[in-house]
Structure formats: C-alpha cells, structure tokens
C-alpha cells in the first residue's frame, strides 16, 4: 500500500476514496489499519495539525538600529502605521524591541531630547522564537511573561518576522474551531 502524507484538508477526500483503493487480497493487518491510512491513524495527523510560529507571524518586518534616534523611530512608526519596531545590531542580529510607548515614557515624559539614541531606552529582548517553533508554545511563553510580541529569528539570530500575542491567539482559536 502506498504510504502518503495527509493534511487536515485531505480528510474528507480520504474517507471517500481510501476504501475503494484497498485491495483486501494483498492487504495485511486489521480492517481498521487497512481502511485508514497509517498517517491518518496516529502521529502524522497530529504533526499536520500543529501550528507553527511561521503560520501566524508577520513576515515583512522593518527594523531600526540602536544608533537611530527616538525621533527617527517615531517617524518610521508613523510611516508604517505600527507601534513596535525590532532593533537589529549593525550585523543584523535581533537586540531589542522599541514601542511608541517606550518613546513616550522613556523619552518624552522624562524630558529627554528626541535625538536620544534608541540604545538608551530600548528594551533588550531576552525571549525570541523561531519560525518552526510550536505556535502554542510561543503563545504560552508570551502569556507567562506578559509579552505582547516576540521577535522571530532564524538560526543566525537574524530577524525574519514578528509574532504578536493577538495574532497567535487568533490563529490558535481558528485552529481549535476548525
């Protein structure tokens, strides 16, 4: 019997087609094993159902450097209509997140110059995730540590995306109700 991988979307098709394909004279095993492909019975289905960070993350991310000013970060946020920007080192590795709230509370409210460099008030990111990480684990991590966003990095710690807690929750809810 040909072993094939099946996705959730294939299920309805499989239920109709598989019994017609089964050659009982050649097949070995119980009826249940014969009628239902092995990939549908066990672990591979769970794997197909697992959602990854890659499914929910924002893939095109604009970054700033620690030497940018609060003012230039604010201009970029206004242009992109976003409230958070990841900070990358000059060699492109993820360092921190800066939000509009950081600019307000750490620069404007304290009376610091708007030319203050980002490295003076950025919040270093101690937690990051990777695109292939389990989405539920990433969501749990954000929930436990009260983080609204995680920077998504590749193996070299270069920024490849951003995952928001709201987007992760939406995707997990959609997955659970499907």
């Amino acid at each position: 019997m040909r072993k094939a991988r099946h996705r959730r979307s294939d299920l309805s098709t499989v239920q109709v087609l598989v019994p017609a394909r089964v050659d009982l004279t050649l097949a070995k095993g119980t009826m249940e094993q014969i009628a239902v492909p092995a990939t549908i019975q066990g672990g591979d289905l769970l794997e197909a159902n697992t959602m990854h960070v890659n499914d929910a993350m924002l893939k095109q991310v604009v970054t700033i450097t620690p030497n940018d000013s609060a003012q230039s970060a604010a201009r970029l946020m206004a242009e992109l209509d976003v409230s958070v920007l990841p900070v990358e080192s000059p060699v492109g590795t993820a360092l921190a997140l800066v939000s509009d709230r950081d600019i307000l509370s750490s620069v404007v409210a304290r009376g610091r110059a708007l030319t203050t460099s980002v490295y003076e008030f950025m919040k270093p990111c101690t937690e990051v995730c990777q695109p292939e990480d389990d989405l539920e684990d990433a969501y749990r991590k954000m929930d436990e540590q009260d983080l609204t966003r995680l920077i998504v990095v590749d193996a070299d710690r270069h920024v490849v995306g951003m995952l928001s807690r709201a987007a992760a929750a939406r995707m997990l809810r959609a997955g659970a109700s499907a």
Partner: protein
Amino acid sequence: MKAFLTKDRLWEEAVVLEAPGRVLRIISCRDAVLCLRRYWLEDDHPTRQTALDRCELVLHGLEDPAAARESFLEAAMEAGFQINAWP
C-alpha cells in the same frame, strides 16, 4: 508595506536641521527619505526631489550614501533649514 523601507544605509555622521520650533536629526538614508517626503519646509525646490531620488537609489543599492547625504544637505540649505553637520 513599502518594501524599500525594509532597507537602510547609515551615514557616517548625523545631520541636525533646525527651523523655528523644530529640530530634525537624520542619520540614515531611509530617515532622510521620510523627512524629505513628510517633514520638509518647502516642497517646490528641485533640490528636494534630487535628494529624494538619490536617497531612494541608495536604498535600492544603486547610489553611495555619502553622495546622497551631500544632496540632502543641499536640499536642506535650499529649504531654509539651519544646518548642523560635520563632514
């Protein structure tokens, strides 16, 4: 999402522009593009468009950041900013 904004090239030295009630500090080509587009004093000087074009070329990898900075300084002077910059 404006794709060209995903790239940036820093200048070697920042440029600080002053006008009554305003101070702009620019240290990169991407920030220069944003300033030239949205936060400029005058819109009708040809030097502004030249600076904008050169800064955008830098973001596409087709121009030298230092040359774009020079154009930016010319445009700032033309627009009437007081310029604080170091070569």
